[in-house]
């Protein structure tokens, strides 16, 4: 028997050698050098939900399922995706069962079991822990083990789209043995575990210097004996986006620089050195201008920008909202600020293709100054001596705010010039991103307060299902003093029809019907002018020309398939 085994092993080894490709052996391609211009603070994504932390930890800890580069769910630590068809999801949509891959080991050699999955849920839902990924487990009533390799999740109410808990880089499974004493308020105290989580991924952490540099090495217990091709990774952090891109594209010191958020023409000159390439993928990010449906007049004091302040004196007119959108030339904005990493869009749900609507592209995608002017003329907005339109003493002069960022300020200038052509004035303002997005109820400059007429920023949704995202425009999600200015319905849009349709979506399980409803909701928002979608933004990163196997992915972590990366020989 032993001999047979030896023989088999020998055959496998011989086959592997005969394969002869560079990727057949683990750890043969040396060190992979990664540069993040925002340094990583911790490797526990439950304690910090920042994109950089989620990415860096996704190299080590993995979820049960991921979304691949095409936007399709792929089993990862699970052996298949549970669906209603294969019996993995109960018919009443109240529970789902994940079957875990057998023989998956943690990097310390112990077995990965259902207990770890259950523990992860407990870890994030223990009160007072401040778990940043709490929303991933929303509606989960219980997580239990059917057997050591089967996990059943039960929900509080029917869940038509149950792929949130343990799916994607935001919800990876952590090792129960390592984190068992770190529940609740004890979580931050477990520094060693937070800085070096034990994982099932292709690499394991060997050294972590917070906000500086991380070193990983190939996981000897990784489930695929031939992977990863790289022996180690050095992930350096800090600096700025332009110099990070330069270190890959121009000097070739690094293999991969995350998030090349740099003006297109600057990248062009760096690319001339021929050392690197840019990879772009599109997820769901949309740069938009939100229109304030309530009155932000400072004279209203504490009531400003709430429903109590009443509708916006100028923006309550649908003609004005439509004209503001018609006047914008999205192609110019894309060309100036985004290059290949942006596409003009009229949708707030721009992807995946199955749920992206094309209904409004005909009137909205192309600039039409004539139509915009005519709309305003017909609505009775007349140009005054200063070229600004007015009606009944209300002037079309808008305070236009956004966060501080060179691309946004350039876009503001462009939009201002475009609006000037239809007799609309704009006063530009910007606030530091940490203040603008900070949500401090005491600050007047947050996007939630919306103490201006129009506001510009980007938002997106995780994964491929827009249900939670579309629910942000519900009437009761408006920020205001009552909820401490928390709430995601920034434009203060309120339409009972919309609310009803979101309710229907949350009860619909059929994927095609869901897509249809999502499109309808998306179209309502664009047509009624809750906002003006501008640019469908992609993720753009720079890679060395010697790096192979990269599949840029906006639906999941950019390093989701790092086990397959290798060095060109």
């Amino acid at each position, binding site marked *: 028997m032993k001999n047979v085994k030896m023989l088999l092993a020998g055959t496998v080894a011989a086959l592997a050698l005969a394969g002869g490709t560079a990727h057949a052996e683990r750890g043969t391609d040396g060190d992979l050098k990664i540069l993040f211009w925002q340094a990583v603070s911790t490797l526990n994504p439950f304690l910090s939900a920042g994109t950089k932390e989620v990415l860096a930890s996704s190299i080590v800890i993995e979820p049960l399922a991921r979304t691949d580069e095409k936007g399709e769910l792929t089993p990862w630590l699970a052996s298949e995706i549970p669906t209603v068809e294969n019996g993995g999801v109960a018919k009443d949509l109240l529970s789902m069962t994940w079957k875990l891959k057998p023989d998956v080991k943690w990097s310390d050699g112990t077995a990965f079991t259902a207990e770890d999955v259950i523990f992860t849920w407990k870890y994030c839902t223990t009160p007072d822990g401040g778990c940043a990924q709490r929303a991933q487990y929303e509606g989960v009533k219980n997580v239990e083990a059917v057997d050591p390799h089967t996990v059943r999740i039960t929900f509080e109410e029917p869940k038509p789209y149950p792929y949130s808990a343990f799916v994607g880089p935001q919800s990876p499974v952590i090792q129960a043995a390592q984190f068992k004493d770190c529940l609740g308020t004890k979580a931050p105290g477990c520094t060693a575990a937070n800085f070096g989580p034990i994982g099932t991924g292709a690499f394991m952490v060997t050294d972590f210097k*917070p906000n500086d540099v991380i070193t990983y090495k190939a996981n000897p217990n990784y489930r695929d004996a031939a992977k990863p091709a790289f022996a180690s990774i050095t992930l350096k952090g800090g600096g700025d986006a332009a110099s990070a891109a330069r270190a890959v594209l121009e000097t070739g010191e690094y293999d991969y620089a995350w998030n090349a958020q740099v003006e297109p023409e600057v990248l062009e000159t760096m690319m001339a050195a021929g050392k690197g390439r840019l990879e772009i993928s599109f997820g769901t990010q949309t740069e938009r201008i939100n229109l304030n449906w309530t009155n932000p007049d400072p004279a209203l004091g504490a009531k400003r920008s709430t429903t109590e302040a009443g509708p916006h004196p100028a923006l309550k007119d649908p003609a004005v909202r439509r004209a503001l959108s018609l006047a914008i030339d999205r192609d110019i904005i894309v060309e100036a600020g985004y290059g290949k990493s942006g596409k003009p869009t009229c949708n707030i749900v721009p992807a995946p293709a199955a749920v992206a609507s094309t209904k409004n592209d005909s009137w909205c995608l192309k600039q039409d100054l004539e139509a915009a002017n005519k709309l305003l003329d017909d609505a009775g907005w007349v140009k005054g001596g200063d070229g600004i339109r007015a009606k009944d003493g209300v002037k079309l002069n808008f305070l236009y705010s956004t966060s501080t960022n060179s691309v946004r300020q350039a876009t503001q200038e462009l939009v201002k010039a475009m609006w000037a052509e239809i007799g609309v004035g704009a006063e530009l303002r910007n606030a530091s991103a940490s*203040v603008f997005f900070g949500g401090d109820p005491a600050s007047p400059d947050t996007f939630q307060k919306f103490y201006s007429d129009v506001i510009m920023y980007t938002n997106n949704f995780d994964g491929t299902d827009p249900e939670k995202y579309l629910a942000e425009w519900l009437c009761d999600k408006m920020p205001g003093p009552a909820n401490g200015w928390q709430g995601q319905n920034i434009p203060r849009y309120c339409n009972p029809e919309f609310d009803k349709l979101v309710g229907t979506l949350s009860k619909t399980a059929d994927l095609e019907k869901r897509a249809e409803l999502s499109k309808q909701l998306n179209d309502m928002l664009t047509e009624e002018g809750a906002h003006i979608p501008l640019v469908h933004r992609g993720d753009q990163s720079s890679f060395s020309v010697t790096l192979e196997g990269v599949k840029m992915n906006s639906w999941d972590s950019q390093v989701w398939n790092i086990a397959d990366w290798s060095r060109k020989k």
Partner: protein
Amino acid sequence: MFTYTLRRLFFAIPTLLVISFVIFALLDLAPNDPTGDLPLTIPPEVREQIRASLGLDQPFLIRYMKWLQQFFINEPLNIFESLTGWQFGDGERMRVLSWATRSPVVDLIVQRLPQTLWVVGLAYLFGILIAIPIGVISAYKQYSIFDQIGTFISMVGYSVPTFFTGVLLIVIFSSYLQWFPSVYDTNLRVTDFASFMAQMKQMVMPVAVLALYNASQITRFVRASMLDNLHQDYVRTARAKGVKERAVLLVHVLRNSLIPVVTVIALGVPTIFSGAIITEQIFRVNGLGQLLITAVQGADMPLVQTLTFIFAVLIVLFNLIADVLYGILDPRIRYD
């Protein structure tokens, strides 16, 4: 002198307490938020829970008192414990935790100190070593070509910001000539000649940028101070006595001229610890300066508070040292 020092140290305590309160109040009033950097996909309820877990739901005064306790009692006890191996109580006490990393702030600072001292400290040292001879010669040969060039370079070094000289050096020496790396490797351990050379190579550019800046400032002080002294009566006396010119310059004039310069240098030492925020960021040296700036951007209040307070302590301390040094170097000055 001794009683003077003691008195000054005693007065430093209330000063520092007031400073710590002012810093804390200012940071609290600033409209930053630790959840501001998180993706917008994190819903508001979760943000609220995160803030509560950071202790932000407590009143201002309680948070301040907690910080005082953590910084002045818990942290020193911890250091004492790790130095002596003794244990007080159960050894479990709340340390000052950074909000971004959730790890003890003091550990972060200790981890960052070597880079900063090496790069910024060395640049300061080089700056002084370059500045003194240039300042001396410039003053001695006032309005000569050497003086003109020296003045020009120091004006350039002083007025051109480091974010320009830094990027310029990267473009020339990293992108074009490819002599030096543009990214500082904090993992590099000097174990043999090759790694020593690698360390030298990666330090050249940041040290050069900072040394130029430091030297420019100090040269001006040395030159001005030398000029003051060169026209003093005692110089004329020395020359009349037939003392060699070399001795007049280096023994009589230089020593007297260095008195105010030493003060300036001592006052500048705290800036080594506060790091060179911009230069560290450009070359990714990731020392204390970069730690401070990322903490400010991420609204990591405990880290900003602790770092700025440590800088305040250093400034107060080196002011005292400068005063004491002045008294030691200049016999005309007596504090008692």
